[in-house]
């Protein structure tokens, strides 16, 4: 039976798609057969981040409407074996996703895959609720910034009341992923710290992804940042995947890193 993990946040632009791409790739790198689904109907972008935008023929809505089979719509990732992408459609019809349709697709995927990653759209509307409804676990992506933390708390409330698990009297296992973290600004007391955000949201910490130039570089190139294993962001995502699999890994990149003499001389970052 596959595990369904939703990547959600409430607020837009905090790194949901970057995280979905990285976590899905990371799970596939660890040998798990993984599919990542873009739930952002009308504003598809996962395909760009995964670098398969030119290979999209059919999409999630086509499958729901039975205009295409799952095998026709899923794109096999070229870099990572065992990884598949199900793109969202670009239709402007907001009600293109139906609860029954989503359930059928997830049930079919569950027969074949070990992990199903659902990349949620921003907001708390139907699309976002659909993405989290069937989830076993949730990765709540949060920036250390007031509006993102507040919206995360709202989405946590929805996970606890409007998910299938909650309706059945269970709970969706929640994970906090803090992204765009800047240790220098935290040290200067200009940014909420990991402890502050953990304190407010009271959700177990999955990982902290430092603000990194590698993230933009990765999206420019259409390669998930987790593949850039020299970058701090890539390494932090690898750690997060290990923790998701139940391993105990110490958190890294939380403190200001002292620049070496040579680096300071050359002005390196």
């Amino acid at each position: 039976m596959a595990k369904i993990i939703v990547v959600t946040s409430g607020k837009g632009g905090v790194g949901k798609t970057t995280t979905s791409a990285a976590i899905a790739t990371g799970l596939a790198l660890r040998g798990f057969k993984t599919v990542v689904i873009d739930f952002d109907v009308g504003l598809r972008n996962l395909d760009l981040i995964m670098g398969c935008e030119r290979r999209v023929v059919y999409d999630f809505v086509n499958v729901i409407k039975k205009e295409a089979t799952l095998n026709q719509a899923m794109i096999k990732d070229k870099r990572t074996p065992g990884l598949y992408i199900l793109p969202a459609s670009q239709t402007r019809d907001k009600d293109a996703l139906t609860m029954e349709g989503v359930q059928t697709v997830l049930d079919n995927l569950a027969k074949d895959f070990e992990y199903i990653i659902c990349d949620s759209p921003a907001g708390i509307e139907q699309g976002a609720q659909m993405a989290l409804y069937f989830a076993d676990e949730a990765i709540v992506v949060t920036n250390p910034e007031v509006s993102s933390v507040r919206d995360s708390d709202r989405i946590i409330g929805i996970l606890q009341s409007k998910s299938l698990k909650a309706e059945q009297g269970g709970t969706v296992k929640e994970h906090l992923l803090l992204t765009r973290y800047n240790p220098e600004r935290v040290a200067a007391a200009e940014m909420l710290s990991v402890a502050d955000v953990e304190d407010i949201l009271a959700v177990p910490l999955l990982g902290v992804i430092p603000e990194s130039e590698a993230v933009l570089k990765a999206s420019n190139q259409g390669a998930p940042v987790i593949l850039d294993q020299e970058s701090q962001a890539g390494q932090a995502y690898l750690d997060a995947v290990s923790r998701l699999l139940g391993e105990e890994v110490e958190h890294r990149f939380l403190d200001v890193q002292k620049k070496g003499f040579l680096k300071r001389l050359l002005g390196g970052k």
Partner: protein
Amino acid sequence: MSIFNYFLKKEKKSSASTAKERLQIIVAHERSKRQQPDYLPLMQKEIMDVIRKYVNIDEDQVTVQLDNNDDCSVLELNITLPE
């Protein structure tokens, strides 16, 4: 930076701690609202309408609060009547 600036800076609260305080307040407020049943706002309005038949009151003179204790819920209705 002069020595005065150094002391002034110390006195000012850091923006991160302001952010944390504001968040703690708003999140606690929104969580308590979230636990209310969906019918509460409508019920509050209907109670108001009944009272208005007899006494002229403002909306902010009525507070309706639902507290959940272990095995019982208490609906608290607080109305300030005008003098």
